[in-house]
């Protein structure tokens, strides 16, 4: 990695449709992906609800942006850290989350999971390891 690549973390702590935060975050991630930085996404607190399977927004007249997470791999955004305690507090497990994968160009384009469950302590370490933290 060259010297001018910085570590960016996008922190997602809001559920997807009650406010505009989640969609705005995803938009900024996609814009930021054009700048060749080392990007990670963190999902904690209500942010874990953004990644649940089976979202259907037809009845509320807003865009279901959850499939967009599955496109992030094409923009080399392949690290989606999800906090295990936040899932458990909300009665969720990894099985309730959609499958998000990327193709690893360094491993013959093998398909690998982008979602990585981490503990709260590991999440704190990830946050402390960044150059820039953007909160949503």
């Amino acid at each position: 990695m060259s010297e001018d690549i910085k570590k960016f973390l996008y922190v997602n702590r809001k559920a997807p449709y009650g406010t505009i935060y989640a969609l705005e975050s995803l938009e900024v991630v996609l814009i930021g992906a054009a700048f060749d930085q080392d990007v990670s996404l963190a999902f904690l607190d209500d942010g874990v609800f953004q990644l649940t399977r089976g979202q259907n927004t037809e009845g509320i007249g807003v865009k279901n942006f959850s499939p967009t997470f599955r496109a992030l791999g094409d923009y080399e955004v392949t690290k989606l850290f999800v906090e295990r305690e936040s899932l458990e507090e909300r009665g969720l497990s990894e099985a309730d989350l959609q499958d998000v994968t990327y193709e690893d160009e360094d491993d013959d384009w093998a398909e690998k999971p982008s979602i990585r469950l981490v503990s709260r302590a590991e999440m704190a370490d990830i946050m402390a390891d960044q150059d820039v933290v953007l909160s949503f």
Partner: protein
Amino acid sequence: MSTLHTVNKSPFATQTLLSCLGHAKSGDAVLMIEDGVYGALSGTQLADVVGARGNELSLFVLGPDVAARGMEPGRLIEGIESVDYAGFVDLVAKHDRTQAWL
């Protein structure tokens, strides 16, 4: 390496302050701003939780936000320091990164 955390929500309305305290690391600073300053009040349900982190974290409030809400400085949890806007800037400059808890 350390982080300045800002919290701008009342801890009686959201889990924001608790989540921040649950992720802040020893040597970090937490600055309560806007409605976040209610988290600095003594005698509340949360005062012990907040005060207990005072040993390893530096806790601050933004003074103008405290004054705006009519909170007497004497009502703040012991050890929490009040800063003005210039002090806020100094805190940002002093730490390696700033993380906003919204």
